């Protein structure tokens, strides 16, 4: 589908984005991504997916994830040793299609099966479901895990359920490490499920973001308010409140996370403070400091930390706080080496 020149012009002016044809934003970005990381990853087209260079690892479980684009580095930036074998990017904020999923799964299968990490959005669920069926029909052993770490969605009985947000990074890192050490498909799926059951996230938006081919902000937020419990596509959260201090806002994120996790105290946790894309790093560290104080006040030991913009919403200003309750095995898998465009240790 092509945009006429006026559309593009108007879009650019209204949005101020570094893009050519907004409708081609995803493809153009992937082209640059492929060139910048040649040798590490490969981008396939028709259908589109990103996979590790070097072909499938025979006999090892492969890990695939994906979802709408605009959340980079999630997922494409996490393709590499110790994390994802392939990522399936959709259009901006739009789930990928089943043919993409099926092609990616088939491409990375090394005979030991493929685990799909799916964020819990109706679109992702439905498209992955269909895509995995197709892959299964072609003879690949598949399993999937649904990430739903966002505690902002309170009444999951009367909604599409909790959304998958920044906790997805922990699932992909840890399941990737389990796959790398040679776990079976069932074992990798179980580890992933364990992470899902132990990670919770809550986010806040200070500003909205603009999807390129839409051309206007995804929601309207008054100058002096923030949206507590934002989703990563600008879905609304629990409530809006006046802009407060970092201390107040961090508390509004950490409290519901802890309420839901209900730790008994003494647990070792991973604390992930994630920028939404447009947040200065200094603010992320301010929030990290406040979150840590709150966790420690509740008797938790912050044993691992990650601070950065990893699961983003384009240029949205905001932050999410994720807490994963570790055990020895999860900590070990978190620490295991990883080598991807966006995460390396």
């Amino acid at each position, binding site marked *: *589908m092509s945009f006429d020149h006026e559309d593009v012009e108007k879009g650019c002016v209204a949005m101020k984005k570094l893009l050519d044809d907004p409708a081609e934003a995803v493809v153009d970005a992937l082209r640059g991504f492929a060139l910048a990381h040649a040798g590490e990853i490969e981008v396939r087209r028709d*259908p589109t997916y990103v996979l590790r260079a070097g072909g499938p690892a025979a006999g090892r479980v492969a890990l695939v994830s994906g979802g*709408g684009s605009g959340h980079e580095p999630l997922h494409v930036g996490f393709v590499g040793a110790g994390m994802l074998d392939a990522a399936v990017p*959709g*259009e*901006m*904020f*739009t*789930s*990928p*299609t*089943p*043919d*993409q999923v099926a092609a990616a799964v088939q491409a990375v299968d090394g005979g030991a099966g493929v685990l799909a990490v799916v964020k819990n*959005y*109706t*679109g992702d669920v*439905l*498209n992955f*479901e*269909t895509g995995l069926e197709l892959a299964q029909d072609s003879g690949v052993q598949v399993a999937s895990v649904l990430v739903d770490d966002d505690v*902002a*969605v309170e*009444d999951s009985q*009367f*909604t*599409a359920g909790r*959304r998958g947000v920044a906790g997805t990074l922990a699932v992909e890192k840890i399941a990737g490490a389990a796959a790398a050490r040679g776990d079976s498909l069932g074992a990798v799926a179980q580890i992933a499920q364990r992470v899902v059951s132990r990670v919770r996230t809550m986010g806040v938006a200070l500003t909205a973001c603009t*999807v390129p*081919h*839409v051309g*206007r902000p*995804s*929601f309207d937020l008054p100058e002096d308010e923030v949206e507590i419990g934002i*989703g990563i*596509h*600008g*879905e*609304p*959260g629990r409530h809006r409140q006046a802009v407060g201090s970092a201390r107040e806002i961090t508390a509004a994120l950490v409290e519901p996370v802890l309420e839901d996790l209900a730790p008994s105290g003494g647990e070792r946790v991973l604390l992930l403070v994630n920028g939404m894309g447009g947040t200065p790093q200094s603010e992320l560290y301010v929030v990290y400091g406040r979150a840590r104080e709150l966790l420690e006040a509740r008797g938790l030991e912050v044993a691992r930390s990650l601070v950065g913009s990893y699961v983003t919403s384009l240029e949205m200003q905001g932050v999410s706080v994720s807490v994963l309750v570790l055990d020895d095995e999860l900590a070990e898998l978190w620490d295991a080496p990883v080598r991807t465009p966006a995460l390396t240790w």
Partner: protein
Amino acid sequence: MTLDAAWAERWMRRSAADMHAAREELTELDRRIGDGDHGVNMDRGFAAVASRLDDEAVPPRETVAQVLRLVATTLMSTVGGASGPLYGTAFLHAARVTNRADLDGAGVVALVEAAAEGITSRGRAVPGDKTMVDAWAPAVEAAERAADGGDAVEVLRAAAAAAADGAAATVPMIATKGRASYLGPRSAGTEDPGARSTAMLLAAAVAAAGAD
């Protein structure tokens, strides 16, 4: 009067034009209670359908079923989002029950029933969830009622009218499925974008029959 493959093609080209024209409208609805891409998704999907129909090399479309199958696979592989697999499955299931050349009233009923069933089998939504099911469910009922004596176009007309009413009736609803459900009570007051696009789709089917 019966509806043939040429009608199905006209239906799809009309839908492509309508979705392109309604792109902003659908997107605005979705911006209010979703993530603001429904218009873009539908426009992208139906534009792809139209361009595949333009392509001489594409598989045969001598029957309604063949056209609908082409639509299904194209939507499935180009729309993404929640609506992609939903509409994709709808057309796939509809294709399965229209395996003869032309549709009479009963044939249209079967088409609409199968499409609606495809959507609920994938999305597991029920009427009142504020989704496209709130347009499809009354469309099925109205089609079934109209089939009692009505010809294909009359059945289609009844279905489209009911879908439009059904879509309008989603305005006060509180969503419990799809992205709008995150809004809770804040989702009331806006028409469900998918219900709206469903109503548009059935209206295009009527228009395509009228232009016969």
